[in-house]
């Protein structure tokens, strides 16, 4: 699949923002006044910035409001509704904390639960896509949730939770890669089932239907950069999990160190999310003699 920057930024940064809001909703850290304002401002900038980024890949973004209507069947619609509900609930909660020095615990708890559901909604947009077997698996929601919650813990200064989260994220990411690498073969779709010509024999593409790349190939048969996947996985994993974990565990805590660790973590998250798209193979690639 084409790793569109708008979608990579959307999933990574809105995940971080909602992860941060989840911890703020639970009163971690228990801040008020201007400090609380700064925390909420960062969280909202990330969450809303990510959501706005997601509209950059739309063909007709002026009609984006219509996307809130089909929550009965569409995970994209559900994600949109959940995101708005979360931002409203957390907004009211933030107003109480910032301006009235009152923390409404139940509202925060509801907001935190909505944050988790929103990230789950984002992950389900990809998980539901059966045509991309790598995504169509329970590891996808777990990976998305672990990214959002670990990043959220990181940005709200929850050192213990972050350290545990960084280990979890590493294990889940490796698990997702190991399982994901076998998913396409396990789906049973081949050029023979795609064309139905397997009953005659081994099939290969003889002539493509068009002479240069079309929308389908640009969007769903993305193979550029896949040869670097192995190296990028290692770089991504080190930046995402290993390096920040080591910085938190083995060095005396300082804010500068935390900033370096967070930047490494986010750079790692962007790298692995790029791979999440670039390595994903779509069944339509079979018609072009390429596995997505």
């Amino acid at each position, binding site marked *: 699949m084409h790793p569109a920057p708008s979608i990579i930024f959307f999933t990574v940064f809105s995940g971080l923002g909602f992860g941060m809001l989840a911890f703020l909703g639970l009163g971690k850290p228990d801040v008020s006044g201007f400090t609380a304002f700064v925390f909420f401002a960062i969280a909202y900038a990330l969450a809303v910035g990510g959501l706005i980024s997601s509209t950059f890949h*739309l*063909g007709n973004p002026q009609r984006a409001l219509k996307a809130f209507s089909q929550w009965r069947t569409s995970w994209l619609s559900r994600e949109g509704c959940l995101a708005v509900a979360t931002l409203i609930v957390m907004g009211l909660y933030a107003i109480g904390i910032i301006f009235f020095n009152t923390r409404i615990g139940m509202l925060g708890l509801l907001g935190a639960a909505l944050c988790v559901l929103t990230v789950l909604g984002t992950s389900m947009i990809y998980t539901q896509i059966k045509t991309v077997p790598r995504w169509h698996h329970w590891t996808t929601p777990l990976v998305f949730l672990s990214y959002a919650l670990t990043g959220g813990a990181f940005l709200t200064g929850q050192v213990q939770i972050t350290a545990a989260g960084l280990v979890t994220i590493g294990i889940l990411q490796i698990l997702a890669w190991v399982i994901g690498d076998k998913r396409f073969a396990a789906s049973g779709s081949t050029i023979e089932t795609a064309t*139905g010509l397997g009953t005659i024999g081994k099939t290969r593409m003889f002539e493509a239907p068009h002479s240069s790349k079309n929308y389908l190939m640009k969007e*769903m048969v993305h193979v550029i950069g896949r040869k670097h996947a192995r190296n990028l996985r290692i770089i991504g994993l080190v930046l995402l999990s290993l390096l920040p974990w080591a910085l938190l565990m083995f060095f005396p805590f300082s804010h500068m160190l935390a900033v370096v660790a967070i930047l490494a973590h986010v750079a790692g998250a962007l790298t692995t999310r790029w791979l999440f798209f670039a390595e994903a193979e779509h*069944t339509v690639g079979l018609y072009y003699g390429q596995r997505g």
Partner: protein
Amino acid sequence: MTNLPTHTDKKLGLVIDLDTCVGCHACVVSCKGWNTENYGAPLSDQNAYGKDPSGTFLNRVHSYEVQPETGAAQTIHFPKSCLHCEDAPCVTVCPTGASYKRVEDGIVLVNESDCIGCGLCAWACPYGARELDQAEGVMKKCTLCVDRIYNENLPEEDRQPACVRTCPAGARHFGDLGDENSDVSILVKERGGFDLMPEQGTKPVNKYLPPRPKDEQIDILAPLLEPIAAEPTGFLGWLDKTLEKL
């Protein structure tokens, strides 16, 4: 609404004969010709006369080489367009309700004025049947020529999809696959029509007819075309030999 109907009155669709298709791409051209000036936004081209021309098409013809266990490889031309699936995954993922499946005839359509061009339906389709128009930013797909098949302003013989009407080999058939006595249903039954990627669980309405076995039956006329006399005899034989000696 992006809920799929539990039942459609008809299951209109295409039956494509891979035995007969000669890969001429006439269906591709006629499809583009009709659909660029009728239902919805035109099918745009990008850089049409440049180095990397591309454009929106609702129907495309691939060609494959199939190698049986024994014998010669076969070349098979393979037209592909929307299969109007009964369990269409492209419809349920749509966030705006622009994609829908019609209850009356099962045609899967896009209401372009509701489409935000997110592209999720194209991702959900296993077959690559949907293309996002790069000029209009809306999703385009085969409409089964909904603006021809019911169009009483057209002569009756033209009230079928443009691809079917134009196919010079008669490799494309249109009809109600929900009616087991329809011509297309009988054709599918007799020729062993099959689904594409049945493991995806989409239950496509369109069916493909397999190529017939090649090179198995010896042509019944062939023995009659054997050379009658290999070597000339008599006077002609003498003449032949004499001329060769000169």
